[in-house]
């Protein structure tokens, strides 16, 4: 479905006409990413990140498929096969560094995309399904990234796998049995490495499938926008192509610029040196840390240091999974009818506190587990849960939102809700 004023696909060539009558793939593309998809005219640069996430996934799949042609998923040779990719495969170093840093870029983009959704209320009716599918994609990404990090079979690969699969042993009674069943042994070994490789190859295609559903669900109500106000008429929208394809082209360029700087000049900056040491089950690294994109969740896990009814470890695991699963309930926790935080003075403050809170959690998750960082993690983890489960539901009922513009066009003409965040964030709404 789309807005009634959406342009219709008109095949011009005999071939495309023939195709359109039999398998209308060009029509599908036209309606979803072409001139047939009307999009609010006032989107800012934060709306580039959906397309960028798609590009990042494509980069991961392409580099990953070629890497898999050279990689051997066997504990005895996995580490050396990765080094042979680095040394002996033509441009192998490029493939591997692109894939490793591509994962980081994917997470940077997706985190920005998620926070964009949180700030502008993109999770609210009628886009709940878009949000639910998005959180599903995020969970799949985390599983894929974790299993991918195990494949080089370095020290952090091995001990990361040990720690993460150890979560399951926190389940009462059957925990250890489940852990051993998942690993195919008492500790990570060949069986685990092989199944992780199999799943690491499978899940990206599952992600691609859920992305199709994500875009499908998005196209029913259409894209949100910085004012959060519904599209009222044709004057509020522009066709996706050429307007947003052109803008996304520029965004993609900037993305590639940052990606290339990382890949070619600081390829190991985001990695851990210990993963250049082959896996050794008999030698535990001094600090086991996951990749940076898991740090906030790792900090939440480590914040639970006290037994209370349940053992501390089980609390930590529940909280860590809970910290993501609660996002599934967000559309119903935040009952404010106003989407954009630009018009929600209190919720906006809570949002920025949350951003700072998660950054601090991330820092703590990457730091050694000494008393100072544990205390900091405990405070920040408490705010994290309080924000979503207590504060936001209360604010959404008690706060008085500022007046909304009557339409997107009105906001644009009054220079509010424009493309620049300065316009959307700083101008008081009472100006018109």
């Amino acid at each position, binding site marked *: 479905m789309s807005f009634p004023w959406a342009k219709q696909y008109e095949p011009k060539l005999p071939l495309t006409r023939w195709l359109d009558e039999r398998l209308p793939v060009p029509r599908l593309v036209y309606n979803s990413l072409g001139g047939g998809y009307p999009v609010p*005219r*006032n989107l800012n640069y934060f709306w580039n990140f959906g397309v960028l996430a798609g590009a990042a996934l494509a980069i991961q799949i392409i580099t990953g498929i070629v890497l898999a042609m050279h990689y051997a998923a066997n504990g005895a040779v996995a580490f050396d096969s990765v*080094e042979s990719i*680095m*040394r002996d495969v033509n441009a192998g*170093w*490029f493939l591997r560094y692109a894939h490793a840093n591509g994962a980081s870029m994917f997470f940077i983009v997706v985190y920005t995309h998620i926070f964009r959704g949180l700030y502008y209320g993109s999770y609210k009716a009628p886009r709940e399904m878009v949000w639910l599918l998005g959180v599903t994609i995020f969970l799949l990404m985390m599983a894929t990234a974790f299993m991918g990090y195990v494949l080089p079979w370095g020290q952090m690969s091995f001990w990361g796998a040990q720690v993460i699969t150890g979560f399951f042993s926190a389940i009462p009674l059957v925990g250890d049995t489940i852990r051993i069943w998942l690993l195919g042994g008492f500790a990570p070994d060949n069986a685990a490495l092989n199944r992780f490789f199999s799943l690491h190859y499978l899940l990206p295609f599952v992600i691609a499938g859920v992305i199709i559903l994500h875009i499908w669900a998005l196209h029913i109500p259409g894209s949100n926008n910085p004012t959060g106000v519904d599209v009222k008429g044709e004057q509020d929208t*522009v066709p996706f192509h*050429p*307007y947003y394809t*052109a*803008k996304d*082209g*520029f965004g*993609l*360029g*900037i993305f*590639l*610029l940052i990606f*290339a*700087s990382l*890949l*070619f*000049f600081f*390829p190991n900056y985001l990695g851990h*040196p210990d993963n*250049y*040491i082959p896996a050794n089950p008999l030698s535990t690294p*001094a600090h086991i840390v996951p990749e940076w994109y898991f740090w906030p969740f790792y900090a939440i896990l480590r*914040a*639970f*240091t*006290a037994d*209370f009814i349940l053992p*501390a470890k089980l609390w930590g695991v529940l*909280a860590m999974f*809970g910290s993501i699963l*609660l996002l599934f*309930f967000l559309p*119903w*926790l935040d*009952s404010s009818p106003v989407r954009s935080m630009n018009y929600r003075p209190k919720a906006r403050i809570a949002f920025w506190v949350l951003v700072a809170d998660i950054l601090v959690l991330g820092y703590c998750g990457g730091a050694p587990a*000494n*008393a100072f960082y*544990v*205390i900091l993690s*405990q*405070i920040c*983890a*408490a705010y994290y*849960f*309080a924000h*979503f*489960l*207590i504060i936001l*539901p209360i604010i959404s009922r008690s706060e008085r939102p500022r007046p909304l513009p009557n339409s997107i066009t009105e906001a*644009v*003409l009054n220079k509010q809700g*424009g*493309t620049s965040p300065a316009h959307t964030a700083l101008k008081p709404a009472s100006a018109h």
Partner: protein
Amino acid sequence: MVRLIASIVGAAFVLVLGIALFGSVAGVITDPVAPTAESVAHKHPKELELASNGVFGKFDRRQLQRGFQVYKEVCAACHSLRLVSFRDLQKIGYSEPEVKAIASQWVIEQPSINPETGEPATRKNIPSDRFPSPFANEVAARAANNNALPPDLSLITKAREEGTAYVHSLLTGYTKQPAALLKEFPDIKTPEGLHYNPYFANLNIAMPPPLTSDGQVTYADGTKPTMEQMSTDVSAFLTWTAEPNLEARHAAGFASIIFILLFCGLAWGAYQNVWRDVKH
């Protein structure tokens, strides 16, 4: 209903975190963390200027050759270089006949079998061989080294924090255990068979000082072989063994960045052109 359950769950997590926080704070107050010898004496690697540093970095091939000589004459007695092949030496400026000669004259031979009897045997190295390990296996390596295992050096500069500087600092960082430190922590006296080195994580390393005097190797190019020089050279060589494609990577990086900048310029122009009549 959702909000009610959520607030209960939220309150539960906050409560448990509050209890944990209370325990942590109480722990800090009643049982403050005492400084350890490592936290007091462990040193951060010294800065090391190398031609390969930075985004414009390139290898200094004469330095790599000197570093290789240090590896060959000093380190190779105990440390393997199992991911590097003799043929790779051509990339640091040795000619094909030179590489052949280096391989065939290498002291440790390549494990092999006797072609007639099938008994284990050794043969001379050829350029396509990886550098052979000085020890047959881990047990042999530990037996010969006071139960310590000399790590493989192929990736050492990437396998340690600030690896290149770390290797250089470690090699030149051996010193007598400071008396003040010993006074503060009487029970950390360096045990027999270990050596005090403030750049090593736990301060006591099994490796005896490998570079002990100036002139330990004789450089063919006339460079004065001071300890500082030998250590710098071998650190440069081990940077190359860990990242042999560094120069190709930097070159490809510059080409890519220029290409992407052009792309960005065109894309920006297209974006502005498409949107010129739409207020947004």
